[in-house]
Structure formats: structure tokens, C-alpha cells
């Protein structure tokens, strides 16, 4: 684990705790005065935990999907996974309004998993075609799912509230409303245990088979882990695009694709990137906030373009 990356992560965590509409100074934290402590435990710490876990989860999800589809431009946002999760929440909201956050998450999970399975089936049929074609198909596929969701929302008069999950936003994260995000912890832990297997998946089906790895079972496990992470993230903070795409590619350029070694680096970089996007969003028109979905989309989108041009070199 590179030390400077870890140091940057710690500094970003500290900065994230300090930034906010209510000013908070170091000495107030250490003196544990009532107000400062309240802000910290009710809002800032939950927000930090959510940011870190979402960043870790999304970047790990991205790299797993990339190994399963063998394409560097695939992540939940470019494979229909996010859109399917949103559709799932929408259907849960209208069909069973009383189901609660956990129930909604389960809907999102099932939809995300089903749509990932369909997407992987599509990608496997066109495996040897252009690498940029795969995310384009994913975006189209996501567009179709999104259109269904919007039509459905329009039909049920909840188009407005749907905007809430369209855009990742950490400002609504407070104590008591974010705990589902902890599901990312076991998902990421399992991913790390299976990191070598996911790397073997990335070598392709026949190479995996000749190394004695069951391709279907490992890919299915990967997709389940992705679905858990994506649905937990969408239900807590909404859709955060590009983290899962940009971070694994940047890390691969420097450290390679051996997940057994790079997964911790990817996780830490993902968390750092999301922290940067969030701090940026909180400062840009202080004391108001820009949702992180916008800043991550902006910063990530630019990096995505850079990577495409570098990749085409």
C-alpha cells in the first residue's frame, strides 16, 4: 500500500469532517463541547463513513464488472446497473409504499442483479468487438431502463421525487438514515477474498476453465457483490457515476491489474476521489452544496475522456 496515498486519504477524511455550513474548529472537537459533538456524531461522521464506504464500494464494483466483462469502460453507470436499481426502488415505492428502506434496497438489489446478468449475456455474445462498443451498448441499455423508470414514474405522478435518486447527494446522510451503507463492508471483504479469482475471470472464460476455475459461479458471485454494493449506495445517497470507471483504470495504469495486490489501492483511491468530489461540491458555492452526483460526474467525466484518448493511443 503506497504511503502517500494513505496519507492523502487521512488528510481528506479530516478535511471532510471540518467542512460544512456550521463551522467547526479542531479545539471544539477536542473539548467535546455539546454543539460540536452533536454535529460530529449526527452529521459529519455519518457523512464521512458513507462517503468512504460508497467510494470504496463503487470503485471495487467497477473493477469487478470490468474483469467479468473484460472491458475497462464498464461500471454500474455504463452497464445499466444504476438505472435498474433506480427502477427497482421506484417499483417498490409504488407497489408497496410501506416496505421501508431495507425492502426498497432488496428490490433495487434484485433489479440490479437481473439487469447485470442480462448485460453480461449481451457482452459475451459480442466479446471480440470494439472495446468502446461495450459501454455504448451499456449506456443504451441503461437508457432504455431509465426511460421505463421515467415513464412509470410519470404514470404514478412521482417523477419529481425520482429526481432525488437520480443524483448522488450526501447532504441527507444523518444518523439513523445511512446505516444500510454498512452492507458494503462484507461485500468488499468478500471481494478481497476472491480478488485472485476475479483476476482469473479477467483472463477470459477458456483460460479460467483451464486453470480449474468455475467461470459461471465466480462471475455470479461477482455480480451479486456488485448488486449489493450498488443497491446499498443508491438507497442511501443516490447514483454516483464514473468513480467505478475512472479509479480502476487510473490504478491499473500505475499498478497493473493483479487484483490481489491492487484492490486495496483501488478501494482507497475510490474513497479519496469521492471525498475530493464531495469537499469540492460543499465549497464551490459555500454555504450551499452541489450534489456529489454532479461533481463526480463532472470530474469523472473529464478523466473518462482522457482515458479514452489515452486508450486509443
Amino acid at each position: 500500500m503506497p504511503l502517500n496515498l494513505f496519507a492523502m486519504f487521512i488528510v481528506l477524511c479530516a478535511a471532510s469532517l471540518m467542512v460544512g455550513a456550521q463551522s467547526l474548529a479542531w479545539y471544539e472537537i477536542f473539548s467535546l463541547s455539546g454543539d460540536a459533538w452533536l454535529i460530529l456524531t449526527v452529521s459529519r461522521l455519518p457523512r464521512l463513513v458513507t462517503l468512504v464506504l460508497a467510494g470504496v464500494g463503487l470503485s471495487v464494483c467497477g473493477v469487478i464488472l470490468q474483469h467479468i466483462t473484460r472491458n475497462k469502460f464498464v461500471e454500474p453507470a455504463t452497464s445499466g446497473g444504476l438505472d435498474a436499481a433506480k427502477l427497482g426502488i421506484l417499483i417498490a415505492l409504488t407497489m408497496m409504499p410501506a416496505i421501508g428502506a431495507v425492502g426498497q434496497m432488496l428490490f433495487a438489489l434484485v433489479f440490479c442483479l437481473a439487469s447485470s446478468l442480462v448485460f453480461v449475456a449481451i457482452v459475451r455474445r459480442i466479446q471480440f468487438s470494439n472495446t468502446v462498443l461495450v459501454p455504448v451498448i451499456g449506456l443504451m441499455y441503461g437508457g432504455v431502463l431509465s426511460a421505463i423508470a421515467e415513464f412509470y414514474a410519470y404514470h404514478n405522478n412521482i417523477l419529481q421525487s425520482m429526481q432525488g435518486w437520480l443524483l448522488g447527494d450526501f447532504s441527507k446522510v444523518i444518523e439513523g438514515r445511512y446505516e444500510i451503507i454498512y452492507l458494503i463492508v462484507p461485500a468488499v471483504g468478500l471481494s478481497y477474498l476472491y480478488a485472485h479469482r476475479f483476476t482469473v475471470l479477467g483472463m477470459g472464460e477458456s483460460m479460467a476453465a483451464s486453470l480449474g476455475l468455475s467461470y459461471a459461479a465466480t462471475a455470479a458471485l461477482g455480480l451479486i457483490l456488485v448488486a449489493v454494493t450498488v443497491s446499498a449506495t443508491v438507497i442511501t445517497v443516490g447514483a454516483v457515476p464514473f468513480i467505478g470507471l475512472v479509479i480502476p483504470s487510473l490504478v491499473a495504469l500505475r499498478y497493473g491489474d493483479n487484483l490481489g495486490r491492487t484492490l486495496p489501492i483501488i478501494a482507497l483511491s475510490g474513497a479519496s476521489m469521492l471525498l475530493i468530489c464531495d469537499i469540492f461540491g460543499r465549497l464551490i458555492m459555500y454555504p450551499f452544496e452541489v450534489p456529489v452526483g454532479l461533481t463526480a460526474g463532472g470530474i469523472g467525466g473529464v478523466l473518462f475522456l482522457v482515458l479514452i484518448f489515452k486508450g486509443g493511443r
Partner: protein
Amino acid sequence: MISVNKLFKTYGKKTVVSDVGAHFPAHKLTSLIGPNGAGKTSLLMMIARLLEPTHGDIFLNGNSIFNIRPADYAKKVATLRQAPGFNLRLTVSELVAFGRFPYSRGVLTTEDYRVIDEAIEFLSLGTLRDAYLDEISGGQRQMAFLAMTIAQQTDCLLLDEPLNNLDIKHAVQIMSALRRLCDEQGRTVILVVHDLNFAANYSDHIVAMKEGRVHYSGSVENVVKKNCLQDLYELNFRIARSEQGYLCNYFKPSGELK
């Protein structure tokens, strides 16, 4: 030893492997030759268990390979295919380490490291250990993939056109390495190869296929013969044999050979 009995592979109405029976002797290097579409790769992939036969059976030391668990089969038979879609950024030594996957499932032991070093040493890849696969030449890449297959420490190695797109120097390096695997380590090597001169000079045994069937099978002397090869490829051959080995000349059409 691997033997194949009454093997068929059909896709709809198209039969790519038809009633194939063949023996691949242990501790020997066997080349599968024949024109394009002869079913060589299909046969090899069925032996590798990467392709399901329509009918027939394949035996490894007398046991049907379909009774062996895939995870155990990976410790007996290693397969190297061409990997055009391979886009992982791994270093040579990381790739070779994945050859130990059937044993270690990711957590490498000191024994694994020893085998990895041996495989790298065997192909003289020491200087490229830490180079990324996408930064070395095609020939070096192929050597790295072969090292991974060697590190799998299986009795039997199956290789699908390992010489494809290689310059003659790397092709000779790969073939001599395979020869040494048989002679020094007693491994069984089966490969699909298009270059007849490599097949004739480096193999012990040749299985020649055409249109899904085995046409000739036997030792090199018995297969690398003018009438056999002419029948196989429908070209005129002139075969010269000297102390340097075989030279199959098929480059000029009939009449122009002096």
C-alpha cells in the same frame, strides 16, 4: 497417455470432428497437422475440456476425462490458447504465478514461488520478470504465457498454434522449450501447428487430420512422406532429409520444382 475414441463434434448439420480415434503417447511431443478447417483445434479443445463433444469419449491414463473434476483436471492437463482478447496489465511474473492457481487458489506458498522461478528460468525470462505484458513483444508475450502453462506443473500440455505470429527465432525457442519439456521433464505435449517443418523436426508423433477425420497418424517417418502430405494438402511436396532434419518444400506449384 491420452486416447480418443469415436469422437464427434457437430454444430447443427455441420460436422467438424467425425469419428476420430487417436492415441497421444505419454512423454512424447505430438503435433496435430492438417489444412484449415480440419478439426484440429476442435479436437484439442475437446481434450482440454473447453469444448463439449457431441459423441465419444476421451481417456487420460485409461480414465474418462469427464469423470474428473474440473479443478483436478487443471492439475493434470494445462491448455494454452491464443489470447487475442487478453487485456489485463500483469507483469510476467504475476502472470506466471497464476499458473499456480489450481494449487494455491491465490495464496502462494514458498513451493509455488520456487516453481514460478523455475518456469521463468526454464524459458530464460529472468530479465523480463517485472515487465508488463503490454510492453513486451509478441514473441516474449507468448513465452510468458508458456511459462505460466509450465508453472501449472501438469503431466500434459495442450497448445493451440503456439507459433502463430511469431518470428522464426521465437518459434524455434518455443519449439525447443517444448522439446526439452518432453526430454528433460517427461511431460506429454500436444500442439496444433501449421508449419510442417517445425512439426517434422521437433515432434515424436504426428496426427494428421483433414475434413474432420484422422487421415494419418504415427511416427514422424511414417507421416512426413510425399504421398501423405500431398493427399493432405493437395499440393506438390518435395521432402529432403539430411542430418539437419526434414525440409518439406511446397512453395512452388507443380512443375516448377527442379
